[in-house]
């Protein structure tokens, strides 16, 4: 999680010490698997964010219009944990 945070917020700060720390816990196969997962996630969220589209379904599973979905989910991403617990 520290690796992901550094890559996405300040990749220049990722140094040899961080790499050694990562390798202490993850195998080479796991490091490259995590890397390829990040390929798909680091940029797409930024691009999708500019397109302003929202989930098709409300937290209770109803199919909703994009206008209603925007009202439900707002501009900023938030965890649905609270909704799921209710």
């Amino acid at each position, binding site marked *: 999680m520290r690796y992901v945070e550094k890559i996405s917020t300040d990749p220049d700060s990722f140094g040899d010490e961080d790499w050694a720390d990562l390798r202490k816990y993850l195998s080479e196969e796991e490091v490259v698997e995590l890397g390829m997962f990040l390929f798909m996630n*680091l940029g797409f969220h930024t691009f999708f964010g500019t397109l302003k589209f929202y989930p098709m379904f409300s937290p209770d599973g109803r199919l909703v219009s994009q206008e209603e979905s925007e009202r439900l989910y707002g501009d900023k991403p938030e965890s649905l944990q609270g909704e799921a617990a209710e």
Partner: protein
Amino acid sequence: MSRMTPLDASAVTDPELVELLGECEELGVPDPVFVRIFARSPDQLKPMLRAMLVSHRDGSVDHKLKEIIRIQLARFVDDPYFANLRSKKAIADGLTEEMIDIGCEDYEDSDLFSEREKVALRFAEQLFLDSTKVDKIFYDEMHKHWSDAEIMEIGSFVALFHGIHMVMKTYDARPLEAA
């Protein structure tokens, strides 16, 4: 020296991966270093290489323009691996280092690029320098020059390669041959 050593070439034995490696070598992006680093997880790598090749080499948007955008993005994040790779197809189609340098920095005042190409370069640049500027007004301008399908093609290409460059930067890798 890359933090993740590329596997020996003889370690890449999966026939599908070998075929994809051949396609990558033909294009020049990525080169075998990338494939041999990520071949530690071949089942994850195969769909990733297909996505990279289709996104970069194929589609309806000019490949030379996508190659400039790709290098522009790699230079933004200071990734020495991807910034130094060059598409053999783009070079064969007439792309020069001068076009790359101007396309990465001073394209707005250049006669080398049409307004259509400048909007695409601006889109790629703003998406990762300040995505709040890529708003409805920006997309309205994009739509004067590009179709919805083309905008999705450019946006997806930028998103994918930006993520790849960010990760590769942390690997501190270098291409087999410098550009």
